[in-house]
């Protein structure tokens, strides 16, 4: 006589959910499209570097590209989208009820979805951060002090941590709100821009992701005044003595938002009526 199968625990559920979510998202066609886009991005960067290297250090160009294109546009919107879709996508299309009637803990479900979205966000971010670097590194003559691998490491680390934090915030919004993407847009464009006008010491800055990321980048690449002005023209001046502990800030934000999301996701009775 065979014993009845036992439902997985929290970690088992998280592992299963993450694997199934990634399996559903990662399709050959999508991966090829993403790689083509990244290659196109690298090619444009190469041409841009070729034109710009007479008047600009390619390190400065790389930092500008990485911060403005990846840090400001691709990273927040891609991460928030992945996070919101992972948690809220099936609530919105009502397929979540098939999961909620299984004998599993919703904590595992949420952690699995969060992990899958975080993996996707980190991979996308790392690819879009590394591609322009290698495209510009192919023109070593344009780098004043030689190709700066430390800049790549700094941006990859900062953006990877930032991506995980954005996904956590998105997961919280997905578990909390009916229109999580609108709140995400408000968070990215509203809250983060408002706090950019606050003094560097303001505690509200810790509720954002862009500010700790900025401190992390500042600490890693140690920009001169011109590069600082290029990267953060609207920000108040920040000294190296005010960097604080950005990694810790990001980790705290990630953990707090994730715990809140779990709390909400476990308790909520998601209405299975269609949402617009």
């Amino acid at each position, binding site marked *: 006589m065979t014993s*009845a*199968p*036992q*439902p*997985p625990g929290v970690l088992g*559920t998280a592992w*299963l959910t993450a694997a*199934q979510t990634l399996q*559903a998202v990662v*399709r050959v066609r999508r991966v090829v499209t993403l790689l083509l886009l990244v290659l196109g991005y690298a090619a444009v960067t190469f041409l841009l570097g070729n034109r710009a290297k007479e008047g600009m250090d390619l390190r400065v160009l790389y930092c500008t590209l990485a911060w403005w294109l990846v840090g400001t546009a691709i990273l927040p919107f891609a991460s928030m989208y992945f996070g919101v879709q992972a948690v809220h996508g*099936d609530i919105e*299309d*009502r*397929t979540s*009820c*098939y*999961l*909620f*009637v*299984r*004998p*599993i*803990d919703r904590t595992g479900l949420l952690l699995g979805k969060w992990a899958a979205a975080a993996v996707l966000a980190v991979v996308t971010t790392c690819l879009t951060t590394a591609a322009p670097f290698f495209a510009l590194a192919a023109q070593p003559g344009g780098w004043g002090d030689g190709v700066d691998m430390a800049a790549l490491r700094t941006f990859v680390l900062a953006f990877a941590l930032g991506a995980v934090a954005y996904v956590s915030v998105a997961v919280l919004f997905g578990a909390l709100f009916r229109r999580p993407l609108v709140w995400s847009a408000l968070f990215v464009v509203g809250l983060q821009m408002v706090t950019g006008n606050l003094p560097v010491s303001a505690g509200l800055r810790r509720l954002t992701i862009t500010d700790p990321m900025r401190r992390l980048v500042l600490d890693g690449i140690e920009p001169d005044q011109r590069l600082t002005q290029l990267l953060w023209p609207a920000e108040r001046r920040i000294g190296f003595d005010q960097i604080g502990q950005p990694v810790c800030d990001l980790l705290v934000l990630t953990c707090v938002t994730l715990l809140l999301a779990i709390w909400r996701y476990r308790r909520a*009775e998601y209405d*299975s009526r*269609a949402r617009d």
Partner: protein
Amino acid sequence: MRPDDALAPVLAFERVTRWYGHVVALMDVSFEVGREVVGLVGQNGVGKSTLMKLAAGLLRPSQGQVRVCGRDATTRAARSEVGYCPDFEALPEGCSGAHYVTNLLRYHGHGARSAAERARAVLQELGLGQHLDRSIGEYSKGMRQRVRLAQALAHEPRFVLLDEPMTGLDPVARSELAVTIRALPARGIGVLVSSHVLHELESVVDRVVLVHQGRLLASGRIGELRRLVPELPQRVRLVAARQRELAACLLQLPQVVAVNLTDRDQELQVTVQQPREFLRELTRLGASGSFVIEAVQMMDDNLASVFGHLVG
């Protein structure tokens, strides 16, 4: 299944009330479902779906208790005993039916291989054998309905909730589904099924639960319910020779309210007040040899007429 298990209810609503803010969706509802097929009947918006979701553990009652196999319906242990087929069409579009059911089975502790085998077997049983590996996005409405049924049945639950399961199915598939549902109690599975197609539900269920405006209106076998409302006039179809003379004779009986001669030869329709008394008189009439009565059919002894009378 132990003998005492067979008697224990798989679903028990104990004085369950559920509010949505200030709106009362269900009020003080109590009933039980054993290893049988129970039909849930009610108009739109009377709380049927809320009741289904409470039984599936998707909602918590505001008051009272919902128990599945003796356990609180919202616990993991109870959920492992429940299969739920919702009334809406939503399914993920990007994967095949077999893949989706396999994925859901993994959450019940099945290994990858056994889940895949089990999913394929159930889908084949439900008539999707030819389309196991096609994307759900390419499925017809009926095929999607079968996938929803498959995910509810695949993990061999002890209790199944079917919310409008006939929707979208063609007549052949409906009768096949009716056979499948009827066979479930024999496997030790209790079923609560809701439907608006009352005549189809009638052929499937052992008992019905009538819900109206959030309250339990009646519960029991259809015949029993019919007898609970004796004041309701009932139509009886008779086939007999000399129909005009028979009609004149029947009108003498105190139970007969009206007699209609139909267009068909030898057929008449009698509206009676106390059907049992009337049938006794009719038997006496037939035994006397005055009339040859070839057929007697109780036309209103069905769910639709009971429902219509009770709901008004």
